[in-house]
């Protein structure tokens, strides 16, 4: 703010007796920018925001009242409201054209927070694991990245969650570390999306597809199987 306008906006006022804390110094109030009506409107807006944030977190849905982009910024308070039932991780397997199933190390393709659950793959699975459109886009991305760098090309994927049981309260347990998928029992796994076998075969044998374009699955064929 320019010095001149700030000086103009600064006023000296006597301190009312009820003020907290009682000022020990001469009070010079820096007035907020804008005309008085704007300051009043902003104060009102601030009050509305706090009320909306409170109601949304306390369980009063406001999506019929507020536009989604505004509501989004009100959804900040309901953190960890439930107990975890399992320790959950998301993993991917690739179906190679050599007829093998391999775990795909996704960390090079999702470098942001690659080693914890804030990485983009985990977040995509957390939000969209039942959304076919997003899962197909995720499949295309993982295939593109894998086939670009790995000589063992894949023609399809499966995306799954690992539901690892929690230790009993107070019991001893090993330090968390990421283990290969093969180290977990099959009953821990739940597959949310997979490429059907015939699609994998078609992609792998199609002479018109180079290894790189293997990473771009066809859309809208409707044969991607149940999620």
């Amino acid at each position: 703010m320019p010095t001149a306008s700030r000086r103009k906006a600064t006023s000296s006022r006597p301190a009312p007796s009820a003020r907290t804390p009682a000022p020990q110094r001469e009070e010079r109030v820096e007035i907020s920018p804008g005309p008085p009506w704007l300051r009043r409107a902003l104060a009102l807006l601030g009050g509305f925001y706090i009320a909306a944030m409170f109601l949304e977190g306390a369980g009063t849905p406001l999506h019929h009242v507020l536009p989604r982009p505004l509501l989004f910024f009100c959804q900040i308070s309901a953190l960890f409201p439930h107990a975890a039932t399992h320790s959950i991780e998301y993993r991917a397997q690739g179906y190679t054209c050599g007829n093998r199933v391999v775990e795909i190390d996704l960390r090079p393709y999702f470098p942001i927070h690659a080693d914890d659950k804030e990485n983009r793959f985990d977040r995509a699975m957390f939000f969209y694991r039942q959304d076919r459109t997003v899962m197909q886009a995720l499949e295309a991305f993982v295939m593109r990245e894998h086939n670009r760098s790995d000589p063992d090309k894949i023609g399809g994927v499966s995306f799954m969650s690992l539901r690892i049981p929690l230790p009993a309260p107070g019991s001893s347990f090993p330090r968390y570390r990421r283990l290969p998928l093969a180290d977990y029992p099959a009953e821990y796994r739940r597959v949310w999306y997979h490429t059907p076998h015939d699609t994998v075969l078609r992609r792998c044998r199609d002479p018109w597809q180079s290894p790189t374009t293997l990473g771009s699955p066809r859309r809208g064929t409707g044969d991607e199987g149940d999620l």
Partner: protein
Amino acid sequence: MSLDAAPRAFTSPQPIERLETVRILAPLAILGFLSTRLWHVGSWLTEAGFVVPNLGRDDYRQPLYLGPLPLWLAVIVAVLTVASGLSTSLGYKTRIASGVFAALLAYLALADRLEAFTVSKLGTVVAVALFASPAGARYGIDARARPQSSAPPTHVNWGNVRFFQALLVFMYASSGIAKASGGWLDNPSVIWTHLHDSYQTAITYLLASTVPAFGWTIFQYTTLVYELGAPVWYAWTRTRIAALMVGLGMHITIGIMFGPVVWFSLLMMSLLLASFAPLPLLARALRHLW
């Protein structure tokens, strides 16, 4: 205090130190959170990384679809975000900087749901509030450039401080209600259940291996009482300092035990300190800094 004095006290001018503490600390916590994302901005905002496609429908997970950026533009967004955040914190061209910072934070929060966390949303709101305030009038580069002949401001309009105070206490209360209705009253091991995934740090493991189960239950119910009662604890002067200590302790614990959540803890601690720390303490710290 008489009944008519209470509203007057609420709407009386507030010490400028509280606003300037938010201005100095909050952008740093927000930038800390963003740092790992901004470092990989190509994987975040461009088609070099995975981008959620346009869902084309009313969906809570995609409040607004904003398409991926070309790499050069993503880099400019990243650089501007860091520059405007630092500039706000330093109090340099604060009005413009905080406006740019707020706009970019809003864009980053809306552009990609996968990287939007509480810090993204709360950080945007804090930046907008700073933009609408006279932040930077003291304890910053702009204020230093002011002629020595004019006395520095001591207070700001009530709304510039009361907003952050009310935001905090009602955020806690709302969170407490969500926890109480979500299982924190029935299950004494809620916190224990969250200690075992990839957020786990060495300190988490050490504490989880040594603190008995009832210790986690005590922590759980202390958190619940603190959050549910926050409007009372902070409004009543007799409990305010104790509440501040509990709040800071809670966020320190969360910060060291849940890996990446440390930036959320730091943002909340900066708002807590700015809003409720004893004024002489804040004033002394700011004078020492500037």
